[in-house]
Structures are given as C-alpha cells and as structure tokens.
C-alpha cells in the first residue's frame, strides 16, 4: 500500500469533516450545549467543591464533544450519497474511519482545551501533572470519537436515527462514570457498573492530573482506554464493511 496516498486521503477527509460537520445543528446541540446544560443542572446552586468535581466535568465535556461529530457523518453522507462517492476516490475504509475519528477527536480537544483554559483562569484550578492531562486529552478524545464512529455504523441514511441511538448510549454512560459520585465512594455493584464505562478511566486519569488522587494507577486507566479504542475501531470497521458489501 502507498502510505503517502493513505495519509493524504485521510487528512483530506479530516479537513472535509471539519468544514462540513463542526457547525451542523446536532453537533452544536449534543456536543456543546448538552454538557454545559448538564453542568449547570448538577453543579449550580448546590454548593459543590468545583475543584473536586472539575475532572468529572472536563471528562464529560470531552466525552460529549468528541463523540458528537462521528454519529452525524456517516448517515449524513449516506443520505447525500457522498459516502459511496468517497470509495470511488483513492480512499479505503481505514481512511474514512480514521478521518471521521480524527475530526471528532480534534473537535473534542479544541473545545475542551478552551473550557479548561477559561476554567483554570477563572477558578485558579490546580494542576498536579500536565503530562497525564495531555495523555487524558488524547486518549479520551480518540476513545469517544471512536465511540461516535461506531455509533454511526448501523445501516441508516437518516442522521436523526443515529443521534437518538447516540443519546441512548451516551447518557447512561455519564451516570455510571464517577462524575457525580467520586469513584472512591462507590462499592459493590455500583463499582462494577462504573468499571464498564470508558469515561470512568478518563475521569480517573483527570483526577490524577489535577489533584493526584486517582483510584487506579495511570497506566491502568491509559491501558483500558487504548483497549477500548481498538475495540471501537475494530467493530466500526467490521459493521461498515459488512454494510457496504451488502450494498447498504
């Protein structure tokens, strides 16, 4: 395989996704407004320790932003028939999946970085380990963007179907991720439930980065996120390839 063509095609797909999808209504609503509304709903007027809960809020922000672009792209392009056109160009499956994933991840990183900088300036938040924060940003954004790409894989050319499915999957993950209740206070079945959500490991990584008081070692959080990324990408590729072979 010619890797120059592969990388060039992938980057052009990223650019195309950024131009077309970053400002689409569903991305703005589910990626920007939704986490802010969630934040105001749970934190305003409850006299909570913002320093303690900020890692959870930042994780939620990255989760919503990075996973909001992917679910829109594939069904939108299937409806417009540009999805099939892409395959007649010097593009292969991996280019499309990585292109969609990177567009989502970049969106998550850009928005969440802005939120982190503004919050740090306003609230004078601590930072114990900048390296872990950067690692969290990269792994978290790629993981949730991969989730977005996976959610876009089922056969439909109606973006609203996928946005509904995406909300159905993403909302419960928020509540079982140790955002609203610190992991250290969980036990039994609650702990098992939180272990199933990728967001748990990101929030834990952010806790290590901001306050140095994570539940798991950083390498466990990072390792689990990497495994989940690979699983999401693998299943997204399998499902989308299967659909294309069937001509749908």
């Amino acid at each position, binding site marked *: 395989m010619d890797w120059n063509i592969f990388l060039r095609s992938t980057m052009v797909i990223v650019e195309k996704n950024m131009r077309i999808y970053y400002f689409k209504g569903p991305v703005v609503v589910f990626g920007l407004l939704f986490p802010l509304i969630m934040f105001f709903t749970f934190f305003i007027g409850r006299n909570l320790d913002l320093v303690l809960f900020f890692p959870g809020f930042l994780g939620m922000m990255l989760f919503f932003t990075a996973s909001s672009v992917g679910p829109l792209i594939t069904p939108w392009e299937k409806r417009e028939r540009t999805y099939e*056109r892409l395959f007649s160009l010097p593009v292969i499956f991996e280019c499309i999946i990585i292109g969609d994933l990177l567009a989502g991840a970049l969106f998550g990183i850009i928005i969440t970085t802005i939120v982190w900088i503004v919050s740090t300036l306003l609230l004078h938040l601590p930072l114990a380990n900048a390296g872990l924060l950067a690692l969290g940003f990269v792994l978290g954004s790629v993981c949730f963007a991969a989730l977005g790409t996976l959610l876009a894989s089922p056969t439909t050319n109606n973006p609203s179907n996928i946005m509904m499915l995406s909300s159905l999957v993403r909302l419960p993950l928020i509540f079982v991720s140790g955002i609203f209740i610190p992991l250290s206070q969980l036990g039994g079945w609650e702990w098992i439930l939180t272990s199933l959500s990728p967001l748990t490991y990101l929030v834990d990584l952010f806790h290590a980065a901001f306050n140095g008081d994570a539940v798991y070692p950083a390498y466990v959080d990072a390792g689990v996120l990497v495994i989940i990324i690979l699983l999401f990408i693998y299943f997204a590729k399998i499902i989308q390839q299967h659909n294309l072979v069937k001509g749908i």
Partner: protein
Amino acid sequence: MEMIEAKNLRKKFGPVTAVDGVSISVPEGAIYGFLGPNGAGKTTTIRMLTGVLTPDEGSVKIRGVDIIENPLEAKMMMGVIPENGTVYADLTAEQNIFLIGKIYGMDKASREKRATEILTALGLSERRYDLVRTFSKGMRQRISIASAIVHSPPLLILDEPTTGLDVYSRHLVLETVREMNRRGSTVLLTTHNIEEANTLCTDISIINKGKIVATGSPEKLKKTFDTGRYVDISFEGPARETLFEGDGILRAERIGDKWRVYTDDPDRAVKHLAEIAEREHLTIVSIATSNPTLEEAFVQLTAGA
C-alpha cells in the same frame, strides 16, 4: 495493455445475482458504452470496477493494477462520476473541486489553474464561490464532472451522466467527455440513451439480467441485429395500399400521414416508388430510407427484461 480488464465478475445480494460472470475489456483511448435496461446490473458492475464494491468472484485491473489488491494505486488513475452526480452541498463549487484535487495530490497552484479552466468550460465560473446547495441539478452534475476531471485522469468512468439533465447541461457534459477523450482519457459510461451511445461510443457492451449479451462497435451491433429495412414516404393526397406492390417491396403499412414500405433493397424500392408516383400523378412530400439502429439491436437483446 487494456485500460480496464475485468474478468468473470460476480456479485450476489442475498438470493439475487446482480452480476453474473461479466467480463469487460476496455482499450486505451476508447469511449466505451455500457448499456442495459433498469436493474440489468450496470451500476453494480460500475461499483465493482471503481472499487466501491468487492466482487464475490472475478478480478478488475486498471492498467494492470488489481483494484482489490491495490485499491489506492488503481483508483489514482480514475475519475468517477457516480449515478446522480453526488457533490458536497455544504461546500462551494471551488471547495468541492479542491477537495478532490487534494486527494489526488495536486498542489495549490495546479488546483487553482485547473479549477478555473474547468469551471469556465462548464459555464460555472461565475458560481465558483457559491455553495453547491444553491445549484440546480444540472449545475450539480457539472460540478460532479468538474471534480472528477480536475486531475486529468487517464480513465474517466461515468454512471448515467446525462440522466435528467436539461439540454444545455447535457450538451456541456457530452462535450466535456469528448474533450477529455481527445486529450487522451479513456472513457467508460453507462447510459439509457441509445442515441447518445451511438454518437459518442467507439465500443459498446450490452448487459441484461447480469450478463453481457453483446459486445462490439455500434455499427457492428447494428448490422448484426438489423431487423429489416423500410422506406417512409408521404404523398400530397391519398394513395392506395395496392400501389405498393412490385419490385423489391415486401409489404406496406400506413403510419400517420405516411406509408412505411418494407423492403430488402431500399435503393430499388425508392426508384420503384418514384415511378409509381409519376404514373399515378402523386406528388411526393417526403421520402426517407431507414438505417438499422442501435435501438433495434438493444430492444432485441434485452427483450423481456
């Protein structure tokens, strides 16, 4: 070396065999027409030739490069205009062309120059910076074509490029195809329009029920499936059917205001009809001999589809 060499392509969707052992050989420099009725397997074949679908069996080589084993390298030689000419409606005309140009590795200066050339040729230079979502269907199809030819591909594949277009857009599209061929591109196109294939193509394959049923030049196909010749003649005033008997005339029937006279020798028939007109004092308003048509060949080959 052939530009496209497809061998024994098969594709099933569930229990339905869409393409059943199709082989196509497209020589360099040809304008190759791929004809067939709706549902015959044209688009499925094109999707396999362009690497969109993987065949269940068979192989596709573009200038000797296997599209299944080396899809990126094979696709670099193509420009593809899919059915319904899909473009990004949320991008401008220029952005659509640049996007494709970038994928093919064109630098900025080349993209700028080529976009100006193509948009001018396709009558869209004034709409260069407008969003495609504001364009008519014909204009969108022209942008689709502009995007496909921006990198001057050695192979241009068009899936029903003129379906549903107005006369002006259709003319521009066909002229662009001819111009690309004059510049050295090989063209493969599917069409429903038999007349279009007749005037444009150097070679034709007709597909029916997933199988190739005929291949050859338009003239060869017309000759092979010649269903008989006739002379259409109309007179000023009435003419009797019994007049149309004699030298070289097989039978005659009235069609509208003219007579269709079937013959196995049109030259003799015309002379004979002129003699009849003179003898019967009839004034000939019009007379025309038929030629075998590609449409006749197409109808015979795809009857019952």
